[in-house]
């Protein structure tokens, strides 16, 4: 894992004027985002704003029609998704998407698909350290896990790729409040060990409480960005996303 870097200009991920489409649907309309190394950056916004599309564009599941995505200073906007796993992008996708027929351990090994056996044996221990529950249930099939456990597995599986930046798409979705607390605690823990995280959330209050900075997305555009503190105090954010009026 990379040590946190103190140089303010060390940007892991940089999106410049990114436009992404689903056929004729113009889902991202010129997005600019920067993710500094060692930070948690959150992407908030209503359903359909384009948060998931942004993450899918970064991890290469879709390619932008215009604009650039840079990872560690290198343009990756045309790189295939499977190559970006090697390049350093770990993505725990929306809906978890774990392999329900495989056991927890096999799911984690799938995460280490591009890695050597020795690397995986070491990294599995690291993941079990973060999520002791996964160790307890290592030989249980993914499909039999509860929602919270599946989310832990999805995050653990993404960590198995040993990423430079971890993309998390609504990890708290559908979880009971106590589990939401737990998941956010773990995200903070992973970050404190040096991992850069881009966190997509609808749960804006929670997300802003652990993030260094945030971007507010609306219909495919960034409408607001700044430090988490500024966003939390912003009138519009309070009204729209923090449920105040």
């Amino acid at each position, binding site marked *: 894992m990379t040590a946190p870097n103190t140089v303010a200009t060390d940007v892991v991920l940089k999106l410049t004027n990114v436009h992404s489409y689903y056929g004729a649907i113009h889902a991202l309309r010129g997005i600019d985002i920067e993710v500094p190394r060692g930070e948690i950056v959150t992407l908030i916004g209503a359903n359909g704003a384009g948060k998931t599309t942004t993450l899918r564009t970064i*991890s*290469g*599941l879709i390619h932008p029609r215009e604009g650039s995505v840079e990872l560690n200073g290198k343009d990756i906007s045309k790189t*295939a*998704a*499977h190559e970006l*796993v*090697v390049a350093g992008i770990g*993505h725990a*996708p929306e*809906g*978890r*998407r*774990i*392999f*329900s*027929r*495989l056991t927890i351990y096999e799911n984690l090994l*799938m*995460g280490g*698909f*591009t890695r050597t056996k020795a690397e995986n044996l070491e990294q599995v221990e690291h993941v079990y350290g973060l999520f002791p529950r996964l160790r307890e249930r290592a030989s249980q099939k993914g*499909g*039999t*896990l*509860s*929602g919270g456990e599946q989310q832990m597995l999805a995050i653990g*599986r*993404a960590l198995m*790729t040993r990423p430079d930046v971890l993309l998390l798409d609504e990890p708290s979705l559908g979880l009971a409040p106590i589990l939401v607390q737990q998941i956010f605690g773990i995200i903070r823990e992973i970050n404190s060990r040096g991992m850069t995280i881009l966190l997509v959330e609808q749960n804006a209050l929670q997300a802003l409480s652990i993030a260094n900075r945030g971007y507010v997305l609306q219909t495919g555009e960034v409408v607001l960005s700044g430090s988490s503190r500024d966003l939390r105090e912003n009138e519009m954010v309070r009204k729209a996303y923090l449920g105040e009026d």
Partner: protein
Amino acid sequence: MTALPATSEAGGARVPMGASLKPLLRLVVPAVFLVGAYAFMGPEQFVNALTRGAIYALIALGYTMVYGIIELINFAHGDMFMMGAFVSLTFLGQILGLTGSITDIARLAPLLVAAFFVSMIVMGAIGVTIERLAYKPLRGAPRLAPLITAIGVSFILQNIVMLKYGPFQTNSPKIFPSFDIVIGSAKIPALSVFIIVVALSMMVALQLFISRTRLGRAMRSTAADRDAAQLMGVNINRTIAITFLIGAALAGAAGVVNGLQYGVSRFDDGFQAGLKAFTAAVLGGIGNTVGAALGGFIIGFIEVGATVMGFSRWGPAIVFGVLVIVLVFRPSGLLGQQLGERA
């Protein structure tokens, strides 16, 4: 079991019904079936059923693997089997100039190996090319588009062979000598034993490949969830190409076997065989490789069983009748486990 895994939304634990009974049934039911069939048909017809079943099973594997990974019913797959037979007869008959059986095992063995090698390699290459040119560009298209394309590919393959070899049967050199292995009072053709052994070895090798290797894991994960597989670092384009390669190579092997067994081939042989092999794949549970092999053998037994009972003309009707009955009671086939339901 190597069904490529399917993802499903699952909250709580799923407890399979009669969990302790199932493995036992899986052994007892086939054993009872085999003993019954043997007693009913006699050893010669029993082996005959296994031989036919082996050919159907080899073809069915290609249907089921391709369906498992890209949810395409590859209607051209039966024609790949037919082409495999023509590659084999071209190689043995026209290039090597062989006509009859070769009794010298020291000559026969390398020729057999070469025939399988050539046919499997050529068909594998054709399979990959077809995937690249005809199916890959349609990957994001509605399901009907690749399906119709597959029917088109089927016509193209048939017409290529008809142009080159004409509309009538072409002889395929039966290089395997016809002698029987006598066990007690039963006489079993050595060729049948050879075919069954070759086919079973390929099936076992395929199972090991899918369940034990890195590429096998890539295939299973791509079948279960293409996006998730990519996020693990799986190159899905290559994985899908390899799936076509293996399926087509197995069809090529089935073509060689068919030539050795029946000695003739015609441009439209792929239609009937393909239909029955497809039925086998559905019967066993499409997407499930063990199911496809099982389905192939079951269809072999049904056909030969019908002949033994004097209903040989009813063979196909009984085959499809059994399919209908199975699907009514088990819509996902005998071994179930549909692939590719994406979460």
